[in-house]
């Protein structure tokens, strides 16, 4: 049973740390010597001065809502803080099924995010030194490099199989379901080849749909994820429901394979799942990697108002790293606000699903 006796104190300490982190990063991003051209220019349109008027996390509500369309198109170096110019820079993309994709420039954030995430993984299920299989979208996405770094950070090597979700969405929209199946089989063929090639792979990143397809293929061939040598899976990238989590643990994987749900994106990094507790009935609760990123569950009509614990609202994201400042962005998801956990003493979010007003027009979970 979790010891929650000092949870209140931890929550208080973390709030103070978050306020301090907020002050530090606002000073960094709005200082003419260190800030990015985008934010320095944008600040001219504000009716407040971030350098003097933002002193705690709550003060971020003074900023207008960040519109992610701002991330479409170039020049992308307008996002790079002056103090970081000249460092080797990556650009990662999100979406991009239609029109110009949203881009984010990154220098070291993905490594830091995944090193922090690594500390949350149990070593018995993700043995140090073990090799990894990264089965999911790579291309312009951050996942391949991030998972590869995670494997390396833990002393292993990552083997990668790519999947291009943009192509899958195009096929689905054209009704070419047979081609989707062929492509999926092609992806799983490659995973099977790597798993069967003696690389001593024990850990895996994949998405729910790909994990399902891989596990079923292994079963069809008289094997299983466990018999293939996999001990730990971190799974995310697409919608991960409570029912699917139960199905995965009870039927797909068996009790000896550890699976942890994650929720992440190019702007936030990686939110961790609350550790599995049978009493939770497979409820999935995510906690953002505070203070580098913060999740708030806000009222559908007023994004500055946090809903009560257990209540439903839209997911609002804040990112504050030296490389990126996002003072409040409404995600395309909704969920329920959850109480802090001893391991993550700040607000969480559960039941994450596509925001009901845009869900009908979105092709979700294609991979």
């Amino acid at each position, binding site marked *: 049973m979790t010891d929650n006796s000092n949870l209140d104190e931890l929550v208080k300490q973390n709030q103070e740390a978050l306020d301090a982190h907020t002050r530090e990063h606002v000073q960094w991003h709005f200082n003419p010597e260190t800030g990015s051209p985008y934010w320095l220019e944008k600040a001219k349109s504000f009716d407040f001065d971030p350098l003097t008027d933002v002193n705690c996390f709550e003060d971020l509500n003074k900023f207008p809502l960040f519109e992610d369309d701002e991330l479409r198109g170039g020049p992308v170096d307008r996002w790079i803080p002056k103090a970081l110019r000249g460092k080797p820079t990556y650009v990662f993309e999100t979406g991009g099924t239609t029109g110009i994709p949203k881009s984010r420039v990154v220098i070291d954030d993905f490594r830091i995010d995944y090193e922090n995430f690594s500390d949350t993984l149990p070593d018995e299920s993700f043995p140090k030194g073990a090799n990894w299989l990264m089965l999911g979208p790579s291309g312009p996405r951050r996942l391949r490099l991030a998972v590869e770094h995670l494997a390396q950070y833990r002393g292993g090597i990552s083997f990668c199989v790519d999947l291009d979700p943009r192509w899958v969405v195009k096929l689905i929209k054209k009704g070419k*379901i047979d081609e989707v*199946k062929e492509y999926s089989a092609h992806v799983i063929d490659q995973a099977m080849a790597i798993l069967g090639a003696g690389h001593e792979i024990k850990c895996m990143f994949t998405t729910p749909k790909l994990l399902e397809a891989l596990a079923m293929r292994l079963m069809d061939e008289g094997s299983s994820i466990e018999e293939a040598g996999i001990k730990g899976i971190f799974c995310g990238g697409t919608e991960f429901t409570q*029912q699917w989590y*139960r*199905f995965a643990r009870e039927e797909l994987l068996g009790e000896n394979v550890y699976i942890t749900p994650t929720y992440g994106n190019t702007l936030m990094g990686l939110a961790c799942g609350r550790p599995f507790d049978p009493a939770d009935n497979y409820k999935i609760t995510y906690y953002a990697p505070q203070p580098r990123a913060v999740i708030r569950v806000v009222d559908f009509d007023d994004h500055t108002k946090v809903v009560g614990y257990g209540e439903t609202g839209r997911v609002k994201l804040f990112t504050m790293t030296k490389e990126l400042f996002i003072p409040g962005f409404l995600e395309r998801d909704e969920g329920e606000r959850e109480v802090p956990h001893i391991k993550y003493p700040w607000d969480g979010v559960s039941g994450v699903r596509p925001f009901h007003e845009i869900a009908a027009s979105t092709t979700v979970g294609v991979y």
Partner: protein
Amino acid sequence: MLEIPVLRWGKPYESFDQQEVVHFETGEPLAKVHQANAGLVKMDMRKAQRARDLLREIPISKLLEICKKAADLYMTAELPLGNGTQTPEEFCRIQSASTGMPEWMCAGNMKKVAFVLENMESILDALTRGLPLDILTKGYGKEERGVMMSYQAHSPVLGLVLPSNSPGVHTLWMPILPMQIGLVLKPGSSEPWTPYRMTEAFCQAGIPRECISVYPGPHDVGSTVTELCGRVMLFGGQQTIDKYKGNPNVQAHGPGFSKILIGDDVVDQWEDHLDLLVDSIYQNGGRSCINASGVWASRHTEAIADAIAKRIGPVGPTSMTDPEAPLAAFTMTGAAKAMNGQIEEGLKESGVTEVTAKYRDGERLIELERCDYLRPTIVHCANTDATLANTEYMFPMASVVQCEQKDMLKKIGPTLVCTAITKDEAWSQQLLDATQIDRLNIGPIKTNALNWLQPHEGNIVEFLFRARAFQNESPAAH
């Protein structure tokens, strides 16, 4: 409240995902239906062969008796449903409340299902063209005339992706179990009632529970059933039908575009057939694919349209409990409004006139707080090119189309049921040769008058079994 679990080869499974079925008029929750996820279906389909193996252990003659018993249970018994039970009256009431079909039509559909089950022996005899049924079990055998026959099942189970609003179509899958093929049912979100009640009736009558799965769920559950079952019957709109065109594994049921063609030899006596025209368009709320959506003739079309319109134009909605309620409600938000808009667009075309308007007090579209109605509509089309000359909507709506007899077969397009009222032998032969017509009635027969000893939209036996060559002894020298 009723809670209805997923059935995985007969075993109840309570899911974390549930969907409420609500009363279409009041919004009152009627039941919570547990939702499967695609992974469950994929996992279970690995055991599909077991369903057929178990069914093959029961002689078909015994299965035919089970069908009769199931018919009786379905019609008369209080059967378990999830955490509750359901009488036949409760079944009709709840089905009406979620689908918008008047209760008396729901009761009528129950009778159709029961009729098929009670007469299954004759139906199978007709559909198999008199094949000794143990050939389906064993895979081969000799007919009475001494010829070796072999039939191979394409799939151990039939997947069904069922509709939400047409309880009558459930008759189509009744012959599956007695042919020793398992059932994988994906009910429509508003009509889980028939699949569950039939499953319970079959199982209480003697079908092993491991032979039937019922997977209520979101869209991807339906697509997984379609993907993994070797043979699938599904229901949808024209877009769905087009999607599966040419896929031999899928029998897609959609709009019927059923029509009545009146031959030149009888068209001057069209009034003799007015009842037939009205009933074909209007019965069962005009909701069936076998309801006529077109009446084609070379002359008198304006008078024909007017006479039909005079009969059904004044009709409007009444209570669902009215034993003569003529119309079903549209329970899906916006559906009726969209159809009405399409009809109004069609009426703007040259030569297209609505005839019912003058017999109707008010608008065609009746919008209520939680449901809508479309009142009967008869349109006259002076030419065959009009959009409304060949459309179909799920309410009593038909176009009376003026067309020369010699052009009809070139113009009618795909037609599920064609009633040709004629004694013209030469034209009858052309009708018999017309491959765009599925079910052909020659003579004054309503389009919706079904003979269950005839195949409906393709022969289910031919869909499920492949006739093939088989020898277990060397053939005679020749």
